[in-house]
């Protein structure tokens, strides 16, 4: 897998460069990681990958990204635990976390926000929208609208809860 990854980095290098946002994708499914990377890099972002939670935490601590795309259901350390550890660690607790989840239920999304995630993406998702999602998120955080953003997300959930 890593050989493939290297190949794309080289190939897509022109779009991202030094100034592109750095995204860490933690997912045990290789196709998902590839999907995220291909499409984020196509928008000029830099992408690092981890196939499990432990590796992801290590990467985040050593080279903190601008944002983490975090799969929930993984063998070993699952997404919730990874998020908790990221938020507990001073080196990583300011990195916004976007959950990638195949669990569509309300309680899973609520749990994500509860833990401290800023957004969630429900599988299956359109990979083309991933880059703009990350970019919008980061620009709002830059504008100091983090709490506002979380408020919106909670409001969304509430509405969802009511329709369920």
């Amino acid at each position, binding site marked *: 897998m890593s050989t493939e990854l290297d190949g794309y980095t080289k190939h897509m290098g022109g779009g991202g460069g030094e100034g592109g946002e750095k995204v860490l994708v933690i997912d045990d499914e290789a*196709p998902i990681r590839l999907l995220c990377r*291909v*499409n984020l890099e196509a928008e000029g972002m830099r992408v690092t990958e981890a196939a499990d939670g432990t590796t992801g935490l290590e990467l985040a601590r050593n080279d903190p990204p601008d944002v983490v795309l975090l799969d929930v259901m993984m*063998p070993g350390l699952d997404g919730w635990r990874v998020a908790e550890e990221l938020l507990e660690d001073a080196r990583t607790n300011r990195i916004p976390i976007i959950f990638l989840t195949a669990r569509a*239920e309300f309680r899973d999304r609520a749990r994500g926000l509860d833990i401290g995630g800023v957004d969630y993406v429900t599988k299956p998702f359109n990979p083309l929208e991933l880059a703009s999602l990350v970019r919008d998120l980061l620009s709002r955080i830059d504008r100091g609208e983090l709490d506002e953003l979380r408020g919106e997300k909670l409001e969304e959930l509430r509405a969802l809860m009511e329709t369920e």
Partner: protein
Amino acid sequence: MEGVARTLLDEIAATFGVSFAGLTFVSDGGREAVGYLARSHGKDVDWWRDVRVDLENEPSGVARAVFEATAFAVYDAAESNVVSPKLAEATGARSAAFVPLLLEERVIAVISIATADERRVFSADDLSLMQTLASEAAVALERLRTGVALEEAVAENEERLSQQAALLRAAHALSSELDLPVVLQRLADELADLLAADAADCYLLDRDRWVFRCVAVHGFDDSLLDFEFPMDKGLAGAAIREGRPLIESTYGGIENPVPHPAYEGFTDVTTAPMSWGGEVRGVLGAGRRGGHRFRPGDASVLEAFAGLASLAVRNAETFTQSARQERIQRGFYRIAAALGQSLSRAATLEAVSQAAAEALGGASAAVIVPSYGRLEPVGGYELPDALAEALEEHAATRDGQLFRAATEGRIVASRSIADDERLLQELRETAVSSGYRSLLAVPVEAPRDAGHGLVLIFFAEERAFSDEDLEVARHLGDATRGALERSELFEAERSARAVAQQLTRTGRLLTSELDPAAVLDEVVQQAPALVNAEAAAFRIVDGDELVVTAAEGNGADAALESRSPASGRLSGDVVQSGVAVVLPDAGSDERLRALDPMLAAGHSAFLGVPVGSAEGAVAGVLAVYAEQPREWREEEIEALQAVAASTSAALSNAELYQRVALERERSVAILANIADGIVAVDREGNVVLWNAAAERITGVPAGAALGRAPVDVLQRSLEAPDGAASGDRLVPVMRGREEVWLSVTEAVMRDPLGVVAGRIFAFRDISGDRLVEQVKSDFVSTVSHELRTPLTSIYGFAETLLRQDVVFGEEERKTFLRYISSESQRLTTIVDTLLAVARLDTGDLQVNLAETDVREVVGQVLDTVRLDNGHKVVVDLPDAPLPARADAEKLRQVFSILVDNALRYSPDGGTITVGASVRDDTVEVTVSDEGIGIPQADQEQIFRKFYRGSDAELRVGADGTGLGLFIARGLVTAMGGRIWVASREGEGSRFSFELPAPSEGSGE
């Protein structure tokens, strides 16, 4: 006396110098005075005898003398209002005196004296003298008068007295006898004697034909008896016409004489009608020859005699009639007496027999009644055995005219049994050899239109049967019918009583007998006697069949446990119709015999009634059987239905009890082995009971809980927060450091005053239940995840490939497309798995078993396995093929699941060992890994749906649906094999399954 009176009057006239003296006697109790003798100027006054003086209404000197009882004088008779003017004028009296004749202070007569030419005064001395004379005269006259009366009476009645004496004798003779023929004969005899006649006769009138018939003669030849002549003939006819006795002194010359030569030669005849009740009944006559006249007095005597005779004849007739009535009635009294005692049928028939024999003077009697379509001798009086047997034999077959007559309701009177062709030869011989000569057979209508029976009366002598006998016989028939009806009532009452007793007994069973089988045994034992049957069976409805669960009587052993279709006939009909089925002769139907072992055992009559269940459906059938064909009476059917009803009640009760007993046993067992915790607290709320399950669930030993409040023991109160104990409540308590969820129900015990006396809590540990719910919920999430993950890749790469803004190299495009392909395959597998589960759940799984080479299938699966994480696979397969009887596709699925699991649950790599070998008649396949292993407690659970090892998720992640082993087991089982696991936590697992080897030579 007249002379004495005349002398007396003349003496008085001379003494007192008067011309007239008269004597009047007081008569008629003092109301009248009658002139007796008067003298005027020495001569009798003729008219004086005709003088009648009304003493009460007319004033007269006589009257005053009678009432004042003293002598007095009247100076001027003409002017006086004392003297009767009529008498004064007739006697020409101027002055008068009246002197009463006193005897024992009673005036018996008055003497009147009078002057005719001049008035004179009678002095007191005169009057006193007159009074003295009169007293003397009164005594003399009274003596005289009495003597005269006697003389006259004797003279007048001498003849009459002799006749009366004769009449009295005759009357005595007549009244001392009540037998009519004897009375009539005496009439003739006495009459001849009374009138000194040569002959006498007595005729009675036949009022139907208006002729006289001779019934008694005296002095005639007996041949005159029964001679008849029209009632208008002869002197008799004339006497009847005139309604009085007649005397004829020229008898030979009368018109219209009685035409019988016996009467020739009579000259003088007297005859008188006999009548009573205002109607002529006959005539009496007496005759003389040779011109001896009857005097008129003889007619009076005859008349008187005829009156007596009428009386005697009437008495005798009445007596004869009443004697007959009495004889008849004696027979009926006996029957009535028998009836009065509410006798059983047998006793009634015996009484009827005796009454019949006595009423008709028979030597013996038998009663034969119709019984269920046959004639049956049922009662006898002094009946010899041989005769009884002969009767029984022929009555049953209704042989001979005798029994046919019974059927037709005719009386058969046989004057001479020996010669009577109407009777059967054998019956005749038996009767004659038993000493009987004649026979009377009386039909008896049996109650309830059951036909005719017979009362037979045997007589020791040859006997002609009179109308009276036949009348008695007919009466007897009616009385017997009454007796039979009465005895039926008695029997009905007795059976009603028996029913009542049975019902009481069954009722007692309700409280005493709580075993349904014992109830049924009792019922089948009692039921036959109740309805005069010989056997009984109880069948219970068991699905489509009836099963005999209790039986009594002949055939019971064969019938017990036997089954018959509930939709069949007999008992089946009872079930279908829900009403009684009544068959008088079911045993004659071969099909029914085949259906019912009781009938097959020789019973004929069948009566079945439904026995209801508590829910109202027919739960069973109670049937009774009789050996002889017979009708079932309405009351018998009702009796059996009553028994069925109480049986039903008894059964429900017993079953209820058994259910309750079972419940109680179960409760005891539950309390002993109960999984629920049971905790009881007393009035103060302190624990008095803490069962083993409560210990186990809470982890608190009973010793530590007893006497303390639950809240102190568990740190949680078990009581409902608002004091309302309703429904289940969820209470979490801590078992050590572990949270346990209890589902608690609470019962409050109150004392009679309503005060809480204690509480009982029952609780279950439902933590496990919550886990199951959790597992199910997780499964849904898992499936969702499992579907969404490949979909994300497929959808994502497709979208990516469609990007216009990026140009992908050939290599990249191939990579994307390969992912789309492999993830689609993954999706298909997941869907297939879900389908397999659905089929296993609904039982729709199809397996096509055929001889399959296990070695080949294992090889194919291993070829597709992608190895990463440093796994190593060791394959241990024989060189030769391994044939098993299996579905190749299903086998591949099973094996794949096991290999996938081995890889998944050994995340740290290690060796996966795959083996297959023949073991006895099976082929065994094994997959071993060196992975995380399965805790002992989970090993039984892992083949269940949704189940995954409790910490498998933590260790290897959420991958997998938790359905693999469930599917694997379902498939293996469907192929006739089995699957199992051996594992040690942390060391790895070894899954094995075996499939049957193909049978020898099957070669499928």
